[in-house]
């Protein structure tokens, strides 16, 4: 790698550096020890020309232009591992990496796959470019009918923010329907926004499109305002993160829980309903934006443990040190790009860990994961017996629903 030490134009390093100060705890970047922990723990750090630690080094050396000339920042899956283990508590993911992606995006240096997802979000309110009118088509044929708030206008206890992949992805719809059965079995009075729901926008934000994130947030905020409910639950940890940590700054503030939290609160009600034994070794994968970012580790495990016959096993990366599935921070829409660079996928790495843990089932609680892990299983011969199940699917089966 060529690194010229002559300052080409000091302004970019300086303006970029100071722009970080405007972000929460951004000034902590000055406390960087250059210890290299971030670059080491980054699952793709070994491929990046400028992993996080080197990016900070380049900022200090006034040669940030050289970082911007590479595309290494698009390897970042915003998994937050770097930030979680930084001894100086620098918000590396939230500030440094996300700002760098914003800068890349403004310069038009953006992989085409990601571009398509962003254009789709702008136009259709979901990254896959599906018709917004069909957002609640997954509810067709379900009895009792799922309450779509725009149609019934009934007040509910719980507004369920279903999210993009849980609404549209044919694999994920099975898990979405399983959660409907569970909520009905528990007698929860819930409703969904249906066509009025837009992408939560969080992964787009972490991919550098803050403006688009704000646009999505405003649309969702307007929809929330129209209906009466006590709290919001989400299928998607990214939506959970957006609603909990990002929307309030935009004046959109509601009590919000991930569905695993919500169900765990009702675990005593659930336990007697777990009639069917599931004899399996289950490895639970901590989604980055549920576990590491929002400290929800125990609730999903408690739900799995409550199922008769289940033996919960842990993979080598777990809890705070969990391994990203590769879908975050735009990774969901950079699959080809990242594969070209790495010739491996984080999802494959994770599936191998599940196999090594002798798991029969890899249980997940994030809608990005079933398709990613199931694809990975197709290419790993030793994983052919491994099944990927969304936590709601496992629970619904145990409840014999």
């Amino acid at each position, binding site marked *: 790698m060529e690194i010229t030490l002559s300052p080409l134009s000091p302004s970019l390093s300086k303006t970029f550096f100071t722009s970080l100060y405007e972000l929460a705890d951004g000034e902590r970047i000055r406390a960087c020890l250059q210890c290299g922990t971030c670059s080491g723990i980054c699952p793709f750090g070994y491929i990046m020309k400028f992993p996080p630690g080197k990016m900070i080094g380049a900022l200090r050396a006034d040669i940030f232009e050289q970082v911007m000339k590479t595309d290494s920042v698009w390897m970042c899956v915003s998994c937050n591992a770097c930030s979680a283990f930084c001894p100086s508590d620098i918000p590396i993911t939230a500030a440094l990496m996300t700002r760098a992606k914003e800068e890349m995006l403004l310069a038009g240096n953006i992989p085409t*796959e990601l571009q398509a997802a962003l254009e789709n979000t702008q136009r259709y309110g979901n990254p*896959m*470019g599906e018709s917004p009118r069909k957002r609640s088509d997954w509810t067709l044929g379900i009895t009792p009918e799922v309450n779509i708030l725009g149609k019934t206008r009934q007040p509910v206890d719980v507004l369920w923010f279903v999210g993009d992949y849980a609404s549209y*992805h*044919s*694999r994920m719809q099975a898990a979405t329907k399983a959660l409907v059965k569970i909520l009905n079995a528990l007698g929860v009075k819930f409703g969904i926004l249906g066509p009025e729901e837009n992408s939560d926008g969080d992964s787009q934000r972490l991919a550098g499109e803050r403006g688009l994130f704000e646009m999505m947030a405003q649309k969702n905020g307007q929809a929330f305002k129209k209906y009466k409910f006590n709290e919001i639950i989400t299928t998607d940890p990214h939506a959970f993160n957006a609603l909990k940590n990002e929307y309030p700054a935009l004046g959109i503030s509601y009590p919000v829980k991930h569905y695993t939290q919500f169900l765990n609160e009702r675990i005593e009600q659930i336990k007697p309903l777990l009639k069917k034994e599931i004899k399996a070794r289950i490895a639970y994968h901590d989604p980055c934006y549920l576990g590491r970012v929002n400290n929800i580790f125990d609730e999903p495990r408690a739900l799995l443990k409550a199922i008769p016959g289940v033996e919960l096993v842990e993979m080598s990366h777990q809890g705070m040190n969990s391994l990203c599935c590769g879908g975050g921070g735009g990774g969901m829409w950079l*699959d*080809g*790009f990242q*594969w*070209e660079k790495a010739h491996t996928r984080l999802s494959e790495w994770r599936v191998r860990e599940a196999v090594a843990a002798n798991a029969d089932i890899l249980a997940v609680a994030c809608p990005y994961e079933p*398709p990613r892990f199931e*694809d990975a299983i*197709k*290419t790993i011969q030793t994983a052919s017996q491994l099944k990927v199940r969304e936590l709601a699917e496992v629970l619904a089966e145990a409840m014999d629903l």
Partner: protein
Amino acid sequence: MSQDIFVVIEHLRGEVAEISYVMLAGARQLSQSSGGNVTAILLGHNAQGLTGNLAADKALYVDHAALAEFTSDAYITALAGPIREHAPRAVIFGHSSIGMDIASGLSAKLGLPIVASCRSFTAEGKFVSQICGGKIMAEGDLPGPTALVTMVPGGYKAEQGQSAQPPAVTTVPAPTLEGLRVALKQYIEPDTSDVDITKEAMLVSVGRGIQNKDNIGLANELAEALGCAVSASRPVVDQGWMPTTRLIGKSGKRVKPKIYLALGISGAPEHVEGMADSNVIIAINTDQNAPIFTVAKYGATIDMFDLLPVLTEKVKQAK
């Protein structure tokens, strides 16, 4: 004014383009309701021989050095006279890189109505156009007195527009072709070093069901017999069995060939996104519940390893 149907014959580098025969077949059907003759118009230079197998009642041939290769400027000037003079019931052009360059221009120049994307004519002589990416068909009376029509393939078979009996050729003097503003500099051959799968009329696409790298040879043999390219879904490319340039789907290329033959592809949304716009999707997959069968027009659950050698052989025989 006549009830004849004119067909503007498209040719490139000494070969009549396939669409010309489709247009002749369409013209034949239209002539049955209009009651006129089918007349082929050929513009070229020393190209009279190209009329040989056209299924037309007669042919008008315009010869000029400036018409040796297609350019819009010269073609519009050369066609305006005969159309004005004969005022046929319809003039059919290809809805193609040639026909579309001139048909609308002639519509504005001669003040004649035009029908685009026509796929077929009804027995009553109505046009049926295929619009909105094939999702909508539009039918209407052929406007008059002379309708210009651009025609898409799919409604008629090329063989219907071919005949062993050459039409009688009348040579028409070319108009003055001066002050032309469009000129061909050169043709650039397609780059054959790496196939651009987005431009193929047909793709033989392999998925996980191909099982191993050696089996790709079976797909290659079929593609070779068909004169088309092989593409792949992600697991195949990930294994390194095919280059990334052949990848179709969300993280690869988006294609819309006339035929997409999917072999052992399950049809995950990530793949379907890249090929759903194909005209006809044919899926071969042993899993009868594979989602690919919900996007395919034709399907078979036969084992592809049984099918491929037989199919390749039959394709070779059919040529």
